């Protein structure tokens, strides 16, 4: 499988490298071999975690839920396969192999039972499942979890109307938190994991436990909480020990002296971490990985974030340089190896969910740049090396984010632009000023807010925060359809929204717009209902003992994340999809029906009913009405109104911890499934075609160049949306050639951020290349493309997602 290239003779810790160029080659060779092995591995469903949880649960009936889950986690750590692959410097898998999707049956298993025969061949994100694991699933896992999953309880508890609007409708995607676990945290490497190590964390829990009495009712929950903490610590320490033993055993039989030395060093690393604090860069990287993979072992779900990698890794690097125990090149190699491990984290999804989150991504965000707690610039050597690792490894994960502020060194920004120009979609550029504002709006102190990091694709986050950043997504375009069809779907005719008045009777544009907002409010109500029911169930059924160890506040308070133990708790975020289609649609109606009176409402409705067939003139008129993304206030102000409303409407509700709901305007590939249930829209969009994604213009309608797109986008009040906003810009390579193009790109970013934009990302690639990749997928296995805020391997996307990427407006400047 691997090329049998001999491992070049480089010392494990080259204090003084001799021939720099040969070292360079060695590092790149290792990266290339590991990447090839990664690309050849098939995404596979692994039942090891599910089996361990099931077997443990059978033995713990009657005990407190948090303790049962902690024991199950520990059992998984004791029983999962230990894998150390050729060439690896950082080791560990959360399943039986490289790219493993692990089922989490305590949340949901039914979908897999239904899709078992089709999951290997489904169009989006197919998974392989071996006969043994299939057997395990059917004979051991399903029988135990039947009637015991969170999914079953959620669906039984939703009111009828929420079920009707919010389950399998593509109007509300409530699935996110009853089909999947939560994820959405960032381990606190700086203040907890690295300085303490899990032995000390365990001992802290033991000390806390000693102060508590079984005779005090208020102590009982805490006793169980600390007991669960101890179990979880024992679990991850066991994992380290098992890896140490494996590496030592492999070193004994390894004949290649170079690899033998490496394995011995890996063994020593795993003897040390994660039980104790790391002492050097390599140990720190191994510890970072153990924690990340254990997150995935405890919950297979998206958006476990590495956090500010440069900030917490640089001290180790500097110390090692000082003592001459590492070279820059070897540190780079370790980082590259860690990157490939992170790419192994994939999230197992049902068919329905795979339409929303196509691309096998684990949404493991990793941030560099930004500012320190005291406000100073945080860029260091590791920031550059992180950018370099993504450039050399070129896989869709980790999701590399850079935080830019006015004093970010120009050189670092240019290094990031150089990476973006490679055409792999990374990094995502984020505006420090707006990110900090969002965090403060969500309740953080300004100094804490400065250490913000990125979560998932574009969500501003902090390692001391517990939140549901993606409680779900809703389809705003459905509300426009209902407004123009008395609450009925134009496709099925079914009454889905409120039975508002006949649109022919609207006396003014404002009356129409207010009716639209009434329909949106109706959707938001079901968003809130579903989330609150789900939150209550999560609190009852799936506390998070391992993850609570990683967030400040839980140990101190003796409460789990689900009970508000974290230092900061932020309310749930709901993602709006199709805002631009509503803004464009309302602008087209205002212009053509109410102001210029080019057509009547009746003519418009007939054209929509017929999907514009036979109404070509009206269709052209609507298509050529003002569109968001062209710096035209006529429509841009409506987009601002849509997005502002999303904030106001959601923040009327509070969650079970008492925190207001908040708005997110991003949306991954949400725009495709949500578009499939909406008929023709007054913006000229044909029935069932994709909607606009996130906060971006509708694909193909922003035709005035990137500065106009950015100016339109910057009109949105980004700080009102702590769930993140997203702008994707596709640039053809000819637009950004040479040093001029690079500086042009950097200046675009700085200007957009000065205007108040939050995030932007560039797709630098030619449409021809993309079409060719569609036709010849085998020739483009490593073509990484950005799909709405995250990256995926292009050829692994379904044709419709591929077409979506191709269709996005290209800003070519000639």
């Amino acid at each position, binding site marked *: 499988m691997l090329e049998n290239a001999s491992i070049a003779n480089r010392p494990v810790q080259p204090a003084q490298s001799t021939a720099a160029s040969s070292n360079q080659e060695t590092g790149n060779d290792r990266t290339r071999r590991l990447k090839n092995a990664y690309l050849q591995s098939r995404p596979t469903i692994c039942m090891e975690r599910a089996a361990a949880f099931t077997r443990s649960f059978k033995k713990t009936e009657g005990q407190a839920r948090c303790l049962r889950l902690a024991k199950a986690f520990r059992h998984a750590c004791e029983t999962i396969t230990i894998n150390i692959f050729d060439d690896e410097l950082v080791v560990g898998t959360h399943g039986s192999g490289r790219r493993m999707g692990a089922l989490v049956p305590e949340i949901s298993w039914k979908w897999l039972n239904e899709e078992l025969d089709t999951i290997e061949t489904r169009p989006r994100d197919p998974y392989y499942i071996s006969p043994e694991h299939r057997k395990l699933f059917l004979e051991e896992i399903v029988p135990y979890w039947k009637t015991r999953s969170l999914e079953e309880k959620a669906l039984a508890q939703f009111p009828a109307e929420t079920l009707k609007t919010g389950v399998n409708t593509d109007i509300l995607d409530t699935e996110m938190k009853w089909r999947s676990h939560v994820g959405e945290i960032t381990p606190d490497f700086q203040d907890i994991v690295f300085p303490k190590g899990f032995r000390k964390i365990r001992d802290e829990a033991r000390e806390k436990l000693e102060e508590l009495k079984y005779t005090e009712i208020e102590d009982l929950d805490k006793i169980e909480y600390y007991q669960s903490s101890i179990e979880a610590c024992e679990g991850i320490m066991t994992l380290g020990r098992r890896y140490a033993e494996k590496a030592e055993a492999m070193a004994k039989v390894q004949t290649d002296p170079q690899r033998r030395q490496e394995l011995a060093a890996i063994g020593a690393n795993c003897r040390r971490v994660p039980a104790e604090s790391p002492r050097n860069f390599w140990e720190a990287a191994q510890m970072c990985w153990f924690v990340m993979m254990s997150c995935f072992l405890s919950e297979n779900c998206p958006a476990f974030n590495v956090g500010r990698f440069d900030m917490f890794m640089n001290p180790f690097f500097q110390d090692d340089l000082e003592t001459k125990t590492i070279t820059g090149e070897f540190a780079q190699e370790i980082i590259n190896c860690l990157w490939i491990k992170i790419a192994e984290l994939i999230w197992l999804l049902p068919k329905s969910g795979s339409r929303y989150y196509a691309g096998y991504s684990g949404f493991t965000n990793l941030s560099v740049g930004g500012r320190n707690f005291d406000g100073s610039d945080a860029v260091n*050597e590791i920031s550059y090396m992180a950018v370099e690792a993504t450039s050399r490894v070129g896989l869709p994960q980790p999701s590399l984010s850079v935080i830019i502020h006015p004093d970010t060194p120009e050189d670092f920004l240019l290094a990031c632009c150089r990476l973006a120009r490679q055409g792999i979609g990374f990094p995502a550029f984020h505006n420090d000023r707006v990110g900090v504002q969002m965090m403060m709006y969500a309740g953080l102190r300004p100094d804490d807010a400065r250490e913000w990091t990125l979560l998932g694709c574009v969500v501003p986050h902090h390692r001391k925060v517990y939140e549901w950043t993606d409680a779900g997504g809703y389809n705003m375009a459905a509300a426009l359809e209902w407004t123009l069809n008395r609450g009925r779907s134009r496709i099925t005719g079914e009454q889905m929204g409120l039975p508002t008045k006949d649109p022919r009777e609207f006396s003014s544009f404002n009356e129409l717009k207010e009716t639209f907002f009434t329909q949106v409010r109706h959707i938001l109500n079901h968003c809130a209902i579903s989330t609150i029911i789900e939150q209550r169930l999560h609190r009852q059924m799936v506390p998070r003992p391992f993850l609570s160890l990683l967030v400040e506040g839980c140990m101190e308070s003796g409460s789990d994340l689900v009970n508000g133990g974290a230092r900061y708790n932020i309310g749930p975020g709901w993602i709006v999809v199709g805002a631009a289609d509503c803004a464009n649609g309302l602008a087209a109606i205002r212009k053509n029906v109410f102001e210029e009176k080019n057509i009547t409402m009746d003519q418009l409705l007939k054209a929509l009913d017929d999907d514009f067939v036979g109404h070509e003139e009206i269709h052209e008129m609507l298509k050529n009405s003002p569109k968001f993304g062209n710096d035209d206030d006529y429509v841009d102000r409506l987009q601002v109104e849509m997005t502002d409303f999303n904030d106001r409407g959601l923040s009327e509700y509070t969650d079970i911890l008492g925190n207001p709901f908040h708005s997110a305007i991003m949306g991954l590939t949400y725009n495709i499934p949500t578009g499939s249930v909406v008929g023709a829209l007054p913006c000229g969009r044909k029935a069932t075609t994709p909607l606009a994604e996130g906060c971006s213009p509708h694909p193909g309608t922003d035709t005035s160049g990137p*500065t106009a797109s950015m100016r339109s986008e910057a009109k949105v009040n980004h700080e009102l949306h702590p769930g993140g906003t997203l702008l994707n810009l596709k640039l053809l390579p000819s637009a950004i050639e040479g040093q001029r193009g690079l500086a042009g790109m950097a*200046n675009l970013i700085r200007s957009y951020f000065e205007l108040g934009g939050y995030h932007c990302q560039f797709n630098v690639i030619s449409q021809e290349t993309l079409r060719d990749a569609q036709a010849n997928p085998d020739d483009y296995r490593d073509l990484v493309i950005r799909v709405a805020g995250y990256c995926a391997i292009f050829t692994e996307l379904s044709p419709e997602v591929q077409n979506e990427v191709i269709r996005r407006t290209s800003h070519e400047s000639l």
Partner: protein
Amino acid sequence: MNNLSRTDITGTVLEIQRWSVSDGPGSRTVIFLKGCPLHCPWCANPESQDRRVQMAIFSTRCVRCGACVRECPENVAIPAAEGAFGTDNCTGCGNCIRSCHGGARSWMGEEMTAGEVVDLVKKDMVFYRKSSGGVTFSGGEPLTHPQFLGEIINRCMDLGIHTAVETCGYFDWKAAEKTIAMLDFIMFDLKHMDEATHKRLTGVSNRLILENILKISSFGIPMVIRIPVIPGVNDDEHNIRATAVFVRDHLPQAIGIEALAYHRLGVNKYQALGIEYPLGHIEPPSDSRMAALRKLITDTGVPSITADNDYDAQLVRSRLKSTPKHLTKDGPDNAQT
């Protein structure tokens, strides 16, 4: 407020393109003005040559709705997909364009006031500030609109916006002199050094052009000389060398020569105007050919300007000290640890 005190001169603007990084320093808005005294067969903007507003037809956008037929007072319009006009008796009233919602017919060129142009230019102020960019006037030949241009540049000066022109050099010096004096940067085309060849290729002699470039040179405004490299037309070594020698010996403040490779991206515009593309048989020059010509230029002692040079050459690109040594600009292969 300021605008009221000035006469609002109008001009024919072909197009305004926002965000260009290759038409002068930094990020720029490019204003294309209509009308050019030269008629180069390789022109990528054929619709810029005629000073008048023209109608363009995009037959593929036509949905045959028949609105143009209904709205035409002369009864000459037919759907664009069927040829656009039945007879030649079009009076240019524009009803058919206004009625066409699909954009199958459009005016090429629009009468705009200087104030309207400046309002559009101002939109991207932030982008100019961040990049030391500004506005560039192109064409057509912008210096054949000296008053209109002068008025816009005047207002840009008030706002602190950097201004530049792209010129073919063929214009009336007396009329344009004052406008030129206000410019910050000039991109000057020298298409051929030989007078007879120049006349054969472009329809005009290069004598006025060479006179004008020397006069501009005496103003001391920074400029770059551009040669559109058309294979088999003007890319012989003799011409390139002669151009470089002229620049070296007579244009002390020129920052260098920018050789621009011929491209065919204007082809569909010829179709839209109903003109046959005159250079159909010529392939764009290869990268190696361009490199050889650039070497010829530098061998003559004149800097060659490419996409790797910012025009005003003032952008400091010093490497930051904290950059790891093995991460040099050209990537890992050059690493020296």
